[in-house]
């Protein structure tokens, strides 16, 4: 029996569009539209998709950083919120939750307050939760920095004195300060150089093994997800289109969109001949998604049924779910 650390059921997040003189709500951007997934304890769960598909919004909504529009999330057997049953956590419970769930952002340049030095950045959460006294902060910060591969002497320095990769290490140290069980990485390596990406990924992998973490890894880069994640979800326009173990997903993609994504990865070698499925056009606006299957406007295998009926998620094989009329 596998244990799930996080379960999201029918998660929805709509952003209202205001218009007119009196700022009336004229419509909604359905950034996350009915998303259901489960994350096993100790695994790395990948969420891939193109820009605007709602992957970051999903990450922030499950952390309660954004107010969900619908659905429920259960973390460690405890319901964090359930919009339909009007269940939310009170302030104290939310604070306790923050200790267990942390987030690492994409841009290491903007996720650290430029006016605070490293020690106070790392210590901020510890003080807030009463996990350490003021004079213990320094030792704790040094310890965490060294854990993340930085020299402990850097504790008095300020974020602007570090390179992008180092700042990302600081951000990781800061997230780890509270000893969380679950970390959402929102494109944590997308802004880094290739050689630094590998370093940060290695660090994340080591920390996971050492501290028994569970990651939710949000990325647009299929290569990274293939290497790093145990199971993977592919999102398109706010919905999950395919979900499987990474191994299965990359060796046997079923959804036409997944196939296109994989075909679009540039060659790894100039000799390689790749069969290309070139998609026409761009991703439609999430404010006005197509009817029926959201992908039918660009799908090379679209049928009539796709234009007006929304396909349901089907389990094709063990742990391989796909949302397409072809199956």
């Amino acid at each position: 029996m596998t244990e799930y650390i996080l379960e999201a059921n029918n998660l929805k997040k709509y952003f209202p569009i205001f218009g007119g003189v009196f700022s009336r709500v004229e419509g909604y951007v359905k950034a996350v539209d009915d998303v259901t997934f489960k994350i096993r304890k100790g695994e790395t769960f990948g969420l891939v998709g193109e820009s605007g598909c709602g992957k970051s919004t999903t990450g922030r909504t499950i952390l309660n950083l954004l107010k969900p529009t619908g659905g429920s999330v259960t973390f460690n057997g405890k319901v964090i919120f359930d919009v339909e049953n009007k269940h939310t956590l009170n302030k104290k419970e939310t604070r306790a939750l923050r200790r267990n769930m942390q987030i690492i952002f994409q841009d290491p340049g903007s996720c650290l307050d430029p006016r605070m030095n490293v020690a106070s950045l790392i210590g901020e959460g510890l003080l807030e939760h009463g996990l350490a006294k003021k004079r213990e902060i320094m030792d704790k910060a040094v310890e965490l920095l060294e854990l993340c591969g930085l020299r402990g002497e850097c504790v008095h320095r300020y974020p602007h004195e570090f390179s992008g990769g180092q700042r990302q290490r600081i951000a990781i140290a800061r997230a780890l300060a509270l000893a969380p069980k679950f970390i959402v990485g929102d494109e944590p390596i997308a802004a880094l150089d290739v050689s630094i990406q590998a370093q940060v990924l290695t660090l994340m992998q080591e920390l996971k093994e050492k501290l028994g973490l569970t990651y939710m890894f949000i990325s647009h880069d299929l290569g990274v997800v293939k290497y790093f994640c145990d199971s993977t979800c592919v999102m398109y326009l706010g919905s999950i289109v395919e979900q499987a173990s990474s191994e299965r997903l990359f060796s046997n993609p079923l959804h036409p969109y997944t196939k296109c994504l994989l075909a679009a990865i540039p060659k790894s070698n100039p000799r390689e001949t790749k069969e290309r499925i070139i998609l026409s056009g761009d991703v439609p606006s999430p404010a006005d998604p197509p009817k029926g299957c959201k992908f039918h406007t660009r799908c090379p295998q679209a049928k009539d049924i796709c234009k007006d009926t929304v396909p349901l998620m089907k389990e094709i094989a063990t742990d391989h779910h796909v949302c397409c009329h072809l199956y």
Partner: protein
Amino acid sequence: MPEALLEIQDLVTSFKTTSGLQRVLDGINLSLRRGEILGLVGESGCGKSITSLSIMRLLPQPYGFIENGKILFNDKELTDLSIPEMESIRGNEISMIFQEPMTALNPVFTIGNQIEEVLDIHQDLKKRDKKEKCIEMLKLVGLPRAKDVYNEYPHQLSGGMRQRVMIAMALSCEPRLLIADEPTTALDVTVQIQILELMKSLQKDMNTSILLITHDLGVIAEMCDRVAVMYLGKIVEETTTVNIFDNPLHPYSQGLLNSRLGNIQKGEKLICIPGMVPTLSDKPQGCFFSPRCSKCIDRCKTDMPELNEVKPGHKVRCWLYVDEDY
């Protein structure tokens, strides 16, 4: 026998800073043949974008200037040209595509307006011909409803479409050289491949040479005939694309190739280049790569190696390949 269209010799570009002059480009030698796609690859801060700005003579003023070296384009010495002479070359014989299609187009003019502006400067066309040429270009870059797009504003187009417009604009005067500075970095994978395929097919049709600047080795594999790898303002390896992937010689190129995640199996350990790119003001002694290099020998710490041709068409800047007959 295709001769060189662009020949860069010993190019040194420096920036004035409060802590003195800093060499951003430190003796670049490059040649680009007619009809060839040359890739320039490296991490941020290695000077690959500054190389392109030096060619265009568009270095940020008043800090940046070309200190030394020659840039021969079609046997013309670009560094000696006056500003008006240079302006007649920009956009006409050499054009450029930038990374951010959002900011590279002026939001207050229609697409048609902006392409016509380029035509106005370099070609003498009648009004109706101009519009026709414009729409023809938009069709060429695969924009559906080219006639509507002609009258639309940049914000009405998506990122991929904007990049197509940029390409249409860059190619409207049929330049001999197109400099593409990270043309697909800001785009999604599915759109990136569209743009790359488009550039490849247009390059074949118009026989334009392309200098493609990127940090993504996948894009290089996809597009280029030859590659130059840059590190801290110097070229460390230059060879054909096939060579760099099959038999990279410089430890830095090897490291870059190893850092790619696409073809590593899950669970395998990543081989990464330790440390990080030093800042320009803090360049290491000897070979710039020596502090991060796993094959560093004593000599690397004191002397900078030259870019030597170790095999026909394969140049490397590394002491490992100097004395042996490799």
